[in-house]
């Protein structure tokens, strides 16, 4: 695995606030890496440091093996797509996409060809002469992508690119960005706060919190074995049980069963407090007391139609040992 870019001990402080706290991170070449986390976790600041819009307080940023820490954005050769798209309103779509090529003194005929190529890649060849404000949000986003790709960047940086789109388009664009990444073979760094987006799109995801990296790895690795409670909660785990020795265990709702008690693993008695019918399944909330003596709510995702559960009913909640995930505190 070669590295397209690297953060080496990077810290960014704004006054008293530490936005990024001594992170080390390698961005693998030709892959899509996601920086994921809640707002204020430092993901956007990290991306902006990579792009050169803000300078780290300490540490180094390496791009393609050389120290780029003090390079201004225009010397980095990266393509960035902004959350607001940031298209040039006074230029046509083709002029927007050709802007970076013009600066690189690409000859007009070659420029025209590469603009057309980039627009075709995002499926907007027919809108080359339009003004950005005449386009829909989704189309503007594609123009922003084409503009960033046209300069053949060493890295393509995407700052929450999908958050201004409506829900249906957002899901379509996930696949679209994956396709473009696969076709161009570009190294992509994507910033998002949406765990579904990260899980679906990433080759590698980096979960951040309060300026630090909590966990990184392939989506299946991270989702299959969250390192701590924050990661687990952020990825949608909601059942947490503390053992007598203080160790924390989590289990996914679909792995909990009602009624039968498991030979080994988790088995705990409680009272049903809520049943939410959702068509294909039901979410049954059970209130119980764990071995540390704390009252906890467990949510079981029940698909078996024969299992009946009504609020007030006493039940046994269980899960096989293989489905239990031990967490660091």
């Amino acid at each position, binding site marked *: 695995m070669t590295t397209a870019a690297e953060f080496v001990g990077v810290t960014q402080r704004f006054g008293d606030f530490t936005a990024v706290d001594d992170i080390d991170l390698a961005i693998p070449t030709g892959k899509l890496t996601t920086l994921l986390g809640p707002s204020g976790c430092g993901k956007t600041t990290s991306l902006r440091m990579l792009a050169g*819009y803000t300078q780290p307080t300490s540490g180094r940023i390496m791009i393609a093996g050389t120290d780029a820490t003090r390079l201004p954005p225009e010397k980095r050769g990266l393509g960035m797509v902004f959350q607001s798209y940031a298209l*040039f309103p006074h230029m046509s779509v083709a002029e927007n996409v050709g802007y970076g090529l013009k600066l690189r003194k690409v000859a007009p005929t070659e420029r025209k060809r590469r603009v057309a190529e980039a627009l075709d890649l995002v499926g907007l060849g027919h809108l080359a002469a339009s003004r950005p404000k005449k386009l829909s949000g989704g189309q503007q986003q594609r123009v922003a992508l084409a503009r960033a790709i046209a300069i053949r960047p060493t890295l393509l940086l995407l700052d929450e690119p999908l958050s201004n789109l409506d829900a249906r388009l957002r899901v379509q664009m996930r696949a679209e960005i994956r396709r473009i990444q696969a076709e161009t073979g570009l190294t992509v760094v994507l910033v998002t706060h949406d765990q579904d987006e990260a899980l679906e799109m990433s080759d590698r995801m980096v979960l951040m919190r309060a300026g630090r990296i909590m966990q990184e790895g392939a989506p299946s690795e991270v989702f299959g074995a969250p390192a701590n409670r924050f990661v687990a909660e952020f990825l949608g785990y909601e059942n947490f049980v503390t053992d007598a020795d203080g160790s924390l265990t989590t289990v996914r709702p679909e792995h909990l069963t009602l009624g039968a008690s498991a030979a080994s693993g988790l088995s705990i008695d409680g009272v049903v407090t809520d049943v939410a019918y959702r068509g294909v399944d039901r979410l049954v909330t059970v209130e119980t007391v764990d071995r540390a003596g704390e009252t906890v709510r467990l949510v079981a995702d029940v698909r078996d139609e024969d299992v009946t559960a009504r609020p007030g009913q006493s039940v046994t909640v269980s899960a096989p040992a293989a489905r239990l995930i031990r967490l660091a505190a």
Partner: protein
Amino acid sequence: MKTSRPVAASLAVAGYIVMIVPILFVVATAFTAGRSLKFPPEGFSLRWFEAAFSYDPFLSALVSSLELALLATLLALVIGVPVTLAIHRGRLPGKGIVEGLFLSPLIVPELVVGLALYQQLIIGLRLDNFPVLLIGHTVLMLPYAVRVTGASLALADPGVEEAARGLGASPVRTFFTVTLPLLRPGIFSAGLLSFVTSFNNVPLSLLLQSRDFRTLPVTMLDYVQQSYDPMVAATSTIILAGTVVVAVIAERTVGFARIFGGINR
């Protein structure tokens, strides 16, 4: 005009009447055939327009006023736009103080500014009247340049300039290919306001003029003090017509909504 606010609408109409009707009287008297500034005018003629166009002091003063207003507007923009950028985009310590300084000519009485410039520059440093007038008018216009372009810059997405940098443009290149075109309506309206302010200015011009460089408003004021004939009304009407032409061109090319909205979208 359909409106659900009768009070505001009545006030607006009253405002228009108060502002426009007196001007209409001036225009009407300019076309009189008589010898005095009386309403209703006595007959119709263009004789006072002929007189105004052949009255040398007005003509040379008009040229002087235009010269001064154009130069001062250009200077105010050349100084004001970068200052605005520094205030809004730069990492300038004490931004508030700098902005306050550049807006202060709005509240300092013009006579005081004029007197200060007269004392220090004309008497003290023995500068010519024209450069001092130019300095005075430029200072007077800086608030417009800073405020109006600042308003449009505040509306502009800083991401657009960052995008240009990311695509390979140096800060200077970004300014000329992205920031400046984005601010064009704001700069245009700042220029328009500045030009009109300078062109109409009396207090500064009155204090700082010389025998061979006098602006039109001051010359007209002098003229009215001596002879009360319709030539002044005719001159005013010509200026008004010029203003209307400028306004129409502005509306056709940029549009008032964009000029006063201040930004290209």
